[in-house]
């Protein structure tokens, strides 16, 4: 088993708030890794640090063995390390198909491909993925007019369109209609099993992450509190206390 992402001693402070404090963890390839923790424990900050959204104060982050902590967001994305946003971000004045088309990988973009049209294979893939998340019928609607949950699904489909090696999902089920959550979990599993995309998932909903992840890290106050299999995490005293104490 190879480690796709390795985080070593990463720290990040905002003014006086130490959001990430000496965090070390690994994301193994081809698996689903969970990241849990009370509100404000530093989960989103860690994602931001990994994808180059802000410079880190110290430590090292590697992706496929390559140091990425000094790279910019776009460079990291082009390596195949992508994230979705907790607040869901899509291109709200474009329709769903257009959102998908512009999400193709930009790894091998050159000046001559900048003006190309998309081939039928690309459009087909876009439509196939929209069908995969259940948005096929709405593909010609302006994406900003979709419901919040649908926008979240679209953002997920856009990430798949980019065919990343590793996808970081920030609370993918938040705001999704509870009746649709099981379907979404199934799709996340298929993204890993069928498309070979390694997932690193922040999730607030405990039953969801317990059923989804192969192994879980728990953060509290910016530090790694516990790490283990879902069963171990579920029964870990420290985790239970952190969650109870935080609410």
């Amino acid at each position, binding site marked *: 088993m190879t480690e796709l992402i390795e985080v070593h001693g990463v720290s990040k402070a905002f003014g006086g708030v130490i959001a990430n404090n000496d965090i070390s963890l690994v994301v193994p390839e081809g698996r689903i890794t969970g990241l849990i923790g009370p509100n404000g424990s530093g989960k989103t900050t860690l994602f931001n640090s990994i994808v180059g959204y802000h410079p880190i104060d110290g430590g090292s982050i590697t992706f496929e063995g390559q140091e990425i902590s000094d790279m910019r967001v776009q460079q990291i994305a082009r390596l195949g390390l992508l994230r979705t946003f907790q607040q869901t*971000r899509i291109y709200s004045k474009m329709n769903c198909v257009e959102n998908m088309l512009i*999400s193709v990988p*930009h790894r091998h973009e050159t000046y001559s491909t900048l003006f190309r049209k998309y081939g039928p294979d690309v459009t087909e893939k876009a439509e196939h993925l929209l069908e995969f998340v259940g948005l*096929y*019928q709405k593909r010609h609607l302006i994406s900003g007019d979709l419901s919040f949950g649908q926008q979240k699904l679209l953002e997920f489909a856009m990430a798949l369109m980019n065919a990343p090696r590793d996808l970081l999902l920030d609370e993918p089920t938040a705001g999704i209609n509870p009746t649709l959550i099981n379907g979404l979990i199934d799709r996340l599993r298929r993204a890993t099993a069928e498309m070979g995309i390694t997932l690193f998932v922040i999730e607030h909903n405990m039953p969801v992450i317990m059923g989804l992840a192969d192994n879980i890290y728990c953060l509290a106050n910016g530090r790694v509190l516990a790490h283990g299999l879902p069963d171990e995490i579920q029964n870990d005293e420290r985790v239970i206390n952190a969650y109870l104490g935080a609410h």
Partner: protein
Amino acid sequence: MNITKGQVLLYGGILTAAIAAPLVFPNYTFQFTVLWVMILLALTWDVLGGQMGYNSLGNIFFFGAGMYVCTIVQIGLYYDVAAYTSAYGAVKVEFTAEQYFTGLTLGLIAAALASVVFAVVFGWVVFGLRGPYFAIGTLGVALSAGELAGAWEYIGGGGGIALPTYPGEPDERSLFFYILCSLLAVATFFTLKKVYSGRFGLAINAIRDDEEKAEGMGIHTKRYKTIGWSISAFFLGISGGLFGNMIGFIEPLEVAFPTVTFGIFMVVMCLLGGKGTLWGPVVGATLFHAFKEITWTYMLGWQWVALGTLIIVLVVFFQQGIVGWVQEKWPERFGISVDDRVVAVSKPEVRANPESHEAAQ
């Protein structure tokens, strides 16, 4: 691409009108030429302002830069520029027909290339700015270019430069510039139509909707922004060169870098027609030019008040513009509809605009 009957009618109608206009109303050829230039100004402004969400107030810079570069090349090919400009047109200098057309051709090519170089260089600086800072930053570029040209004696300073005279009859001259300006505006339109329809168009739309997301998805945002500005600058530079020659005399503030007239008009025209659409700038420029000519003719003294009122009405009540309004009113005609052929979802909803607008941030 299949061409519909509507398209044939539309393009055929425009072509007919374009050919007929200067022949039927020869006294207005100059006004028609200015209309084509206005269409070009609006189209090129919309690349950044409408399609990419970067509101530039300084695009007129490329117009003026192209104008000066073209002029200097036209003169410099055959005379000493400093001697020519210091004479302030007092000494009549003859250009043969061959010299004139050679100079104009090379001048326009130089204007186009120089404008692109300027776009790349300034883009490098101003694309670090967002929102109002970008607008003010670009405005600063245009204003200081006007001041700089006014202080630079080599290119005529504030006194300006008289262009080489056209070797032919006045009527022929008007028609000559009408044809060139209309062809250039049409070329601009079809170039933009082409580039908007592919990856480039979607990329700049994505930058408009959420640049940070676009960066996060790995889009080469800087590259697209620079290229978008360069395309605008390319056509603006040529149009400036042509416009200077058509006027026959250029000076920095009124002709080359008219920041508060043409520089603002191009924005107003896009707002009026519908920014971020291909046809909006064309519709807006045409109506605006008509509006302007009418108010300037019949409301002299009040024309600026009328213009100000138009701007306020647009900004407050009619932000989507004419084409934008049409698209909102009949979305199905623009392909914005639910497709219920393939039922991939368990519960198909057949509503075009469901619940939350707020969810779209």
